[in-house]
């Protein structure tokens, strides 16, 4: 649908926040703590962090929590009773202040959970989320959304996209979906008519560093390259990159038991861990860090495009910012682009 463009006064944002918070809805927004920003449930408008280029953690945790119950069980005298999770236990969530790259990531994550088998647990949770995106006016050297099909004012994935018109100005609101319209309906008076606004001039400038098609083509023949070994030598094999990534979906399934009661949970896992693919026999198909690093890159830029027709990277640059060993994905992709076959 053609997006409806409205103007929201700077002072109206707080009013909108108050409206959104009510009536069995929760607002999740960026919150700063220990110098890091992540999404959490916000009660007070003033708690929302504003001074960030990109949040430390992606908003993935809202639709794909790091630990998520998939069933409950209890042992009793008659045997076993097992119960699934009811969708109405999940509240309506307003996801406030996410960047266009994160919003694009929602689509990529959804493709993983919906190719072939449809993951209803994920879909249910996502159906309760309304995405209120905020365009980027600032960028840093880690950003590369424009190289992977995004841009600082990308509307993809958002229900409403807000773009601030200048440093301290009002906001252009692009209402993109039905969910977005429902938000407007909650307090239409906050959304004024917008004149002709050239949104692009208020957006950050993110230079294109490569084209993802170029990387895709290269990776097809790159599996046995020595480049992986060189790149991964300083990788220390933690899961930080995967856990802050908006599109990494690898998970583990674990049982959590307390006496006769317990639940089965789905929790995040990372292809960077050495035991990720370890067989019970002791055999490990990816037994060196270079194989694990290769899996991370290949999965995002070769396997996903081929199998799911989407890329597994939104160019948010979080993995590079979070990496304790300074593995920089942009730099590594660029060197793959330039490497001789």
């Amino acid at each position, binding site marked *: 649908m053609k997006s409806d463009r409205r103007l929201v006064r700077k002072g109206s944002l707080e009013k909108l926040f108050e409206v959104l918070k009510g009536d069995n809805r929760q607002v999740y927004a960026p919150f700063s703590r220990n110098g890091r920003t992540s999404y959490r449930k916000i009660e007070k408008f003033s708690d929302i962090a504003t001074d960030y280029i990109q949040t430390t953690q992606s908003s993935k945790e809202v639709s794909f929590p790091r630990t998520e119950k*998939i*069933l409950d*069980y209890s*042992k009793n005298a008659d*045997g*076993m009773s*097992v119960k*699934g*999770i*009811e*969708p109405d236990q999940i509240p309506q969530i307003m996801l406030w202040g996410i960047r266009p790259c994160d919003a694009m990531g929602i689509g990529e994550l959804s493709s*993983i*959970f919906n*190719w*072939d*088998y*449809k*993951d*209803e*647990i994920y879909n*249910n949770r996502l159906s309760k989320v309304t995405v209120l995106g905020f365009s980027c006016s600032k960028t840093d050297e880690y950003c590369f959304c424009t190289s992977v099909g995004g841009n600082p004012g990308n509307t993809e994935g958002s229900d409403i996209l807000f773009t601030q018109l200048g440093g301290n100005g009002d906001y252009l609101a692009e209402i993109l979906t039905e969910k977005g319209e429902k938000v407007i309906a909650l307090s239409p008076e906050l959304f004024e008519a917008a004149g002709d606004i050239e949104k692009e001039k208020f957006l950050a400038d993110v230079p294109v560093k490569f084209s993802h098609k170029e990387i895709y083509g290269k990776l097809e023949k790159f*599996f*046995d390259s020595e480049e992986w070994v060189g790149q991964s030598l300083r990788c220390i094999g933690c899961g930080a990159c995967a856990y802050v990534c908006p599109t990494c*979906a*690898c*998970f*583990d*399934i*674990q*049982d959590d*038991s307390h006496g006769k009661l*317990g639940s*089965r949970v*789905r929790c995040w*896992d990372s*292809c960077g861990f050495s035991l*990720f*693919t*370890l*067989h*019970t*026999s002791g*055999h490990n*198909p*990816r037994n060196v860090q270079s*194989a694990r690093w290769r*899996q991370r890159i*290949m*999965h995002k830029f*070769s*396997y996903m495009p*081929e*199998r799911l027709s989407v890329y597994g990277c939104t160019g948010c640059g979080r993995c590079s910012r979070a990496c304790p060993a300074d593995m920089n994905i942009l730099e590594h992709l660029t060197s793959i682009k330039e490497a001789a076959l």
Partner: protein
Amino acid sequence: MTNNLYMPYQMKVERITYEAPGVKTFMLRFVNEDDQNKFDFRAGQFGEYSVYGVGESTFCIASSPTRKGYIECTFRQTGKVTNALSDCEEGSIIGFRGPYGNTFPLDEWKGKSLLFIAGGIALPPMRCVIWNALDLRDNFKDITIIYGARSTKDLVYKHELQDWGSRPDVKLITTVDPGGESPDWKGEIGFVPTIVEKVAPSSKDTIAIVCGPPVMIKYTFPVLAKLGFSDENIFTTLENRMKCGFGKCGRCNVGKVYVCKDGPVFTLAQLNKLPDEY
């Protein structure tokens, strides 16, 4: 929730058979009759078996799809879940979800001879196909089974081996590794590849299905090639670590191929195209 992919069927352990040291076969029946009526699978598929409070573990369905009303699985006690399964008694309730993965193309094999080569604990995935083929015996020409284990006590399905051995329409060759024989052992002594070479089954109109430890498979493929089997006519299964079973959890892939969805059954021709990461 209507469609929770992770929700297992409740299964009752109806019969436990001790197969070999640390190896048991469970016969499982659906607690809910509805589930049983809806359930259907094909030879080669696998499932996720779970003990509540402990976790899930992946292995194949070892019974034939032609035998309705129950499924069987055979597992060796090695990890957390298989140990907990092993502690189950007859009557216990466990979880099972599946079936997942692709299947052995038995329909395409109609009118051909079948050669089964298995080693050790790898007979269970093949047992499913063997019984499936035997139940539809008229569809196939010769059926040959070559099965080897470390020692006589490690041979699984001892009763069925006797059964197959006594059938006129099956040629069964069992073997144990040198030193693994008991005084009354009447089968062959030697490693599986050696025995295959010795038996030298004909490759004419024949499909070879090979399952076993990596080292056995590695040395069996060249023998089969020498006997004239084409890569397209050699089938095997890959076993990778899995959590979900349906292409989401991200750990079983070999390159772009997901063992849980595109496998576990592969022809040698397909395997040759995969990167060396399994």
